[in-house]
Structures are given as C-alpha cells and as structure tokens.
C-alpha cells in the first residue's frame, strides 16, 4: 500500500518542552484522515512538520515519499494544499486578486482561479477580503488550498465559520477529492460532524500518539458501551420496560416522548437486543457503536457529552 505520510519516532522540542514525542503514524494514500486532539495535543506541530515549516528534533518523516526538509522540499510543497486554522489574507486585495497572486506563488495555471472560485461557491470574489465574513474567508482559504490540484490536502479546522449548507458542500468536495485519489487530512474539534466522512483517525494527546487506525476498527477495539434507542408503540406504557432495563440490563434509560435511550456494555449488546426483540410494546430498535467523540474521550481521558451535539 502506498503511503501519503509516514512518520517514525517523530519528535519536536522547544527548549526543554516536547510539543510532539515519539509519534509514528502512517496515512495511506487516497484516504480521508481525521487528526484529532485537544488544544496542545500536537496537531498543529505535526502539520507544520509535514509542511516543512519547522524541523523535527527527532525521528523521520516522509510526505508523499519525500523529506519535507530535503532537496526536493520545494517541489513537495507544490503537491500539498494547506488550509491553516483562522486563515488570514491581505485585506486590501479582492478574493480574485488574492487567488491570482497565490496561484503565481504556487506555480499553478492562472486559468484555475475562476474555476476554483466557482467550485468553492465564493460569491463577491471581486470585493475586498477585509469585507468578507468568516465563512467567505474560509471558502477562499479552501480555494487556495486546492490551487495546483494537490495530491495531499492538510486542512486545519476547515469547517470553522461555515454554515450547515456550506459544511455539507465542503464534505461533498472532500468526497470528490477522495474519489479522485487525493489524500485529505482534516484536523478538527467537531468530531460528530467529521465522523461520517473519515476513513481513519489519528488521535494525539499531550504531544503523543494515543491511537490510530480505521474508525470502525478503533471503535471495535475500544469495546466501549453501545447506545440503544427503542421506540414504544403508540399508547404503550414504557414503565414496565424501563423497570426491566434497570433490573435486568443494568441500564439507566433516558425517556424522551416515545423513545428510551440507554447504554449497555459492549459484551451485553447482543443479549440485550435479543431480549428487546421479544418485548411486545416496541416498534423500533436502533443500536449505535460509540461515537468518535466518546472514543476520543475514552482514549484521551477527555470528558465527552452524550447525544448528537457531541463534539
């Protein structure tokens, strides 16, 4: 398998403090990978190392088969698209002028500018950037990351400032890039939003690698409690089943209108579902593996809220 990124024992030290230590990761080419971790986990340091913006203090790193600090570093950067967190531009230039200027620096064809502005849906491209909203700035940031049709995209908080429609368009764009064999690394805090679109996750904490792998594999390996939601039949009395769940399954169900939601240990999942199937008053059962946010919390010892608003 071809790897877009290969790091072995990678470390970065500032004075006596290690921002990143003994990180060994592999990112297969053509996948969408989530780079997860709380502030100070080392995500930005890892991205800066991949871009050759800072030198590693320890270990080896190959990006698209090249050393980011080697003789071919400049050619390598032409193959990478980067969207920094809180991307900034020159306020006195318009979006179109900004992209045209950056296209020259990226050695990308000038003809790409108009296409990319259309692709990211940036209206008012002829207005000065200083008048842009966060979302418009983010769209322009995405457009510049796509200049030169890069093989690898490193996107730091790419949906920050985007409204739900723009976020959906962004993930459609990511899916299209993936379909064309591009590798996309997304660093984000919004795990619930990210989860359905990831092939793999790299979880960092305190500058160290906590976990990496395919999202499904990580979830299965962690064997975290699963969340079961059952819907009661119209007019059904949920009290007996609530009592049964408390006594027999050791669950603490939460009732919302005609649904009950509860967690059961991974090992008890099948048995619980089998028993629930025999309950006469239920019309639907939904079983969900632990979310990425709960997995992240379990691995990184971070508190995670439950439900759809998990981040």
């Amino acid at each position: 398998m071809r790897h877009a990124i290969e790091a072995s024992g990678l470390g970065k030290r500032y004075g006596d403090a290690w921002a990143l230590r003994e990180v060994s990761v592999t990112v297969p080419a053509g996948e969408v990978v989530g780079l997860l971790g709380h502030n100070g986990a080392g995500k930005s340091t890892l991205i800066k190392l991949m871009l050759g913006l800072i030198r590693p203090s320890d270990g080896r790193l190959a990006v698209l088969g090249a050393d980011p600090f080697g003789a071919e570093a400049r050619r390598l950067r032409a193959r990478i698209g980067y969207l920094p967190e809180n991307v900034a531009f020159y306020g006195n230039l318009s979006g179109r002028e900004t992209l045209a200027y950056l296209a020259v620096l990226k050695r990308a064809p000038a003809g790409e500018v108009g296409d990319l502005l259309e692709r990211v849906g940036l209206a008012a491209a002829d207005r000065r950037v200083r008048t842009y909203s966060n979302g418009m700035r983010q769209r322009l940031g995405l457009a510049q990351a796509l200049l030169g049709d890069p093989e690898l995209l490193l996107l730091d908080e790419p949906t920050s400032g985007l409204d739900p429609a723009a976020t959906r368009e962004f993930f459609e764009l990511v899916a299209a890039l993936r379909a064309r064999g591009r590798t996309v690394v997304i660093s984000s805090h919004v795990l619930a939003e990210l989860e359905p679109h990831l092939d793999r996750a790299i979880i960092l904490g305190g500058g160290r690698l906590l976990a990496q792998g395919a999202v499904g594999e990580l979830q299965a390996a962690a064997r975290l409690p699963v969340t079961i939601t059952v819907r009661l039949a119209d007019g059904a009395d949920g009290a007996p089943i609530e009592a049964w769940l408390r006594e027999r399954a050791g669950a603490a169900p939460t009732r919302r209108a005609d649904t009950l939601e509860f967690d059961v240990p991974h090992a008890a999942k099948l048995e619980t579902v089998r028993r629930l199937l025999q309950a006469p008053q239920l019309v639907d059962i939904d079983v969900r593996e632990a979310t990425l946010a709960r997995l992240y919390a379990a691995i990184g010892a971070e508190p995670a809220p439950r439900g759809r608003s998990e981040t």
Partner: protein
Amino acid sequence: MRPILSIAGKEFRDDFRGRWTLAITGLFAVLALGIAYFGAAAAGRLGFVSFNATLASLTTLAAFVIPLIGLLIAYDTIVGERESGTLALLLSYPLSRAELIAGKFLGHSGVLAVATALGFGAAVVLIQLMTPEARTWSAWRHLGVFVGSASLLGASFAGMACLISALAREKARAAGLALLAWFVLVMLFDLVLLALLVFSGGNAMERALYPYLLLANPIDVFRLVNLVALGAGAGNDVFMSMTAAHAYPPALLVAAMLAWGFGPFLLALLAFRRQEL
C-alpha cells in the same frame, strides 16, 4: 524569478495603494523645490541660485529623510506577516524564504527608488529648466549620482528594516527597533565620531582612522559619494574639510555604497532562513 517579481509587484502596489509612494514623491519634490528656491534666503536672495549648492543641500536633507522612510515602509515586512497569520500560508507554498524576503525587499526598495527619481528628479529637472547655466552634462551626472546613491541608501535602510522585521517577535518591537536604528545612525553616530576626534586631541592615528570610520555608516557614505562628487564650494565645505585629510578613491566609495545597499538585506536573508515559525 517570477515569484520574486510577483511579491515585489504586490508590495509595490500595496505601497502605491496605501498612498506611500505618492506621499513620499510629493514630499521629496516639495522639499527639493523649497530648498532650491529658499536655500539662499539667508544671503538675502530668493530663487534658484546654484545647482550644485541645491544638490548639496538635498544630500543633507535626503540623509535624514530617506533612512526614516525606508525603515517605516519595511519594518513590518516579516513580523507583520507573522502577526497577521499569512506567513505560515506563504511558506507552505513552493517558495523559499530567500524568494519571499527578496521580493519584499525589492518591492520596498523599488518604491523608494521611484519616489526618489520622480520626486527629487522632477524638482531638479524643473530647476534646470529655469536656470540655463545648470544645463550641463556635469549637472546631469551629479543628478544621476544623487538619485542612484539615494536609491541605494533607501535600499540599505529597507534591508535594515527587513533584518529587524525578521528578528523581532512583535510588530511594536520592530517599530521601536527601527526608530532606534534611525536615531543611532542619523543622530548619534557622527556625534560620537566627533567627540572621539575632539577628546583624542586629533592625533595622527585618529585622523587617519576617522575617514574610514565614516564608511561604517551608510548615511555618511551617501554624503561622501555626493559631496565628494560635487567637490568643494558647493556649501559642503565643513564636511569636506573634515574628510579632506583622506582622499577617497571613487571605487572605494562606490563599493561601500553598494555594500551598504545590499549588505543589510543579505543579513536579513540569513536571519530569516535560520528562524522557525
């Protein structure tokens, strides 16, 4: 080369849009015309009197103004990009640090060169048109020396500003250091040299060393280039008498001016290449 020209072009346009270019050009032209017209007022005369005397006065004036403007337009070259967050983005492109800083240096130096040529140049040409006796080949040559050396002086201070900008971690600190550099080189340096000369009693060694110490300051090199070219009797007699003990070979002055024009930029380049984001 194209990225360097593109960055230089952007810096040039930014300075133009920000009205820097226009303001500097206008200032230079007004100052040049003012000095030329009112320069002999102390002697009870008004109007354009002597071309060489005007150029000598302009040299003294430019030695104060050009360093300040050079430092002001370029002090945030790198630190400004770092603070606004655009530096990391630019360096993630297939662009070397040398190309980035060279483009910026070229843009800022270009603005100063254009402003000098248009501002001082236009005024001097006007003076020439109004004073027929100044329409000589030697006057044009002196004008060429003045504009060329003033442009190099601007480049020198733009390069110093780039160096300060590469080393400083905050824009405010860079601004403070830029003003300090101006104060030391424009105000303090010559005073210290004079004090040394006076306290040493003007012994032979000091007198032999003094002319070379002047070469350690780009402003003095600029003055030497122009005033030595103009010769004595152009209102520069005090300076000439202080430096007359040493005959400067023209090649040495040209080399010193070129070294000061590009030296600070090369130091800025080295400093920027060694820095991490």
